[in-house]
């Protein structure tokens, strides 16, 4: 098998960044439309109308749906025999640079000590890549451009096993109450339970990638997702925290086995501008960009 032209990977990366920042996934758009129909107050309706108008406008003039195009994060699932494995990281970095100037994206990567903005969304560890090696010879790329507003309210806590799932639920509810209007609600709430401090947060982030119309395959967890969805919308925080019936569009929970002594819980938020896009590059260089 020949090597894949690195340009192919790079172009696919640019394409999915572009797709993600301009076009919201269908499940998110549908959930926002339903939310608009369900709201009754003028203020809440006005917020959702602005959101829906904005989504349409962004598509028609092909501009990023929100100015905060985030820190660029990639989730990579690469087949162990994919013929181009050593180009992936470089391609993602190059693609981020090109996407920043061409789409354009807002330059968001700042050195934490000097406060200097790199100007092209790259820097130490950035764009960040989550690696996963799988069988086969294809490459799956997913990009999640996630803004600072929803990132700043992410929460983590080490509960004790005695707190149990009941304690987990309370922590999630409190996290949403504390976040209030800051993460641009209606939000998607991603929850990671178990593993360890690092693992639970990664799971919470990954949970945000699951489409809104897909519940957890485990019935006990699917039930908890629905239960929390209903409770969180009872808070009345509403769109932008200005009051209303829609505070969250969905709750997605992922878990890992926990250590006997600990019960870590991580809560990650995605704003209504819940951007994600994926593509597969096959071993022969052909590729396919995902619908959402």
């Amino acid at each position, binding site marked *: 098998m020949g090597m894949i032209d690195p340009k192919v990977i790079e172009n696919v990366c640019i394409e999915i960044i572009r797709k993600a920042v301009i076009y919201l996934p269908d499940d998110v758009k549908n959930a926002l439309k339903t939310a608009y129909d369900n709201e009754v107050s003028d203020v809440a309706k006005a917020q959702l109308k602005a959101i829906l108008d904005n989504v349409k406008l962004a598509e028609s003039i092909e501009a990023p749906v929100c100015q*905060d195009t985030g820190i660029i994060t990639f989730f990579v699932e690469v087949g162990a025999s994919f013929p181009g494995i050593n180009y992936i990281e470089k391609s993602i970095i190059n693609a981020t640079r090109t996407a920043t100037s061409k789409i354009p994206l807002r330059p968001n990567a700042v050195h934490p000590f000097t406060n200097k903005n790199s100007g092209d969304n790259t820097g130490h560890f950035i764009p960040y890549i989550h690696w996963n090696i799988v069988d086969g010879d294809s490459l799956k790329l997913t990009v999640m451009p996630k803004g600072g*507003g929803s990132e700043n309210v992410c929460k983590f806590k080490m509960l004790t096993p005695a707190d149990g799932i009941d304690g987990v639920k309370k922590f999630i509810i409190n996290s949403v109450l504390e976040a*209030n*209007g800051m993460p641009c609600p209606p939000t998607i709430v991603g929850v990671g339970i178990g593993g360890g401090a690092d693992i639970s947060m990664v799971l919470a982030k990954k949970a945000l990638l699951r489409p809104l119309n897909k519940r957890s395959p485990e019935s006990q967890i699917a039930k908890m997702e629905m239960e929390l969805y209903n409770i969180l919308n009872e808070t009345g925080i509403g*769109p932008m925290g*200005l*009051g209303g019936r829609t505070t969250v569009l969905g709750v997605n929970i992922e878990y890992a086995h926990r250590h006997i002594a600990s019960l870590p819980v991580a809560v990650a938020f995605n704003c209504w501008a819940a951007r994600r896009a994926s593509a597969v590059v096959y071993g022969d260089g052909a590729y396919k960009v995902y619908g959402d």
Partner: protein
Amino acid sequence: MEYKFKTPLSESDARTLRINDIVYLTGTIYTARDQAHKRILEIISRGDILPIDFRGMAIYHCGPIVKKINDEWIVVAAGPTTSTRMELYEYDVIRTLGVRMVIGKGGMGLRTAEACKAYGAVYAEFTGGAAVLAAQSIRRVKGVEWLDLGVPEALWILEVENFGPLTVVIDSYGANIHENVNKKAYEKMSSILK
């Protein structure tokens, strides 16, 4: 109530507004985020002169996406950023600069509300993330200062036409929508959280 205002705003314009009112602004607005707020106050405390006059103006918590075409800046997307990060500075900014409106998202704290009351200003919100919609009402970039802070943090001087809908969230009478919504939310959850 719905209002259409032109900048600069007078004290009585600001004092007319109550929470839940909707405003559309025409005229000049200035973007400023954390770094610009910090620099504004540093310059004032040194007794130096600011590059622009803020009196009666609106400050917009926003870091836009811009592009340069033939030496002219074009704003592509310009939604609000989370305002609480500016809470640290806003009281003094309102007090010393005579700003009449602060625009952002997510709400602000007690000190800002105090300044609104004492000096006659309001805090209003534009729908978070509705960045392209916001950019539509920006007629042109009149200028930019402090680009050394980076594009998002720079002070962008924007000419806007019917910029809105802006929802008045904190008025000059001490009312605050988020405070009301938040209080109710905690009350509703209290039995579950016990």
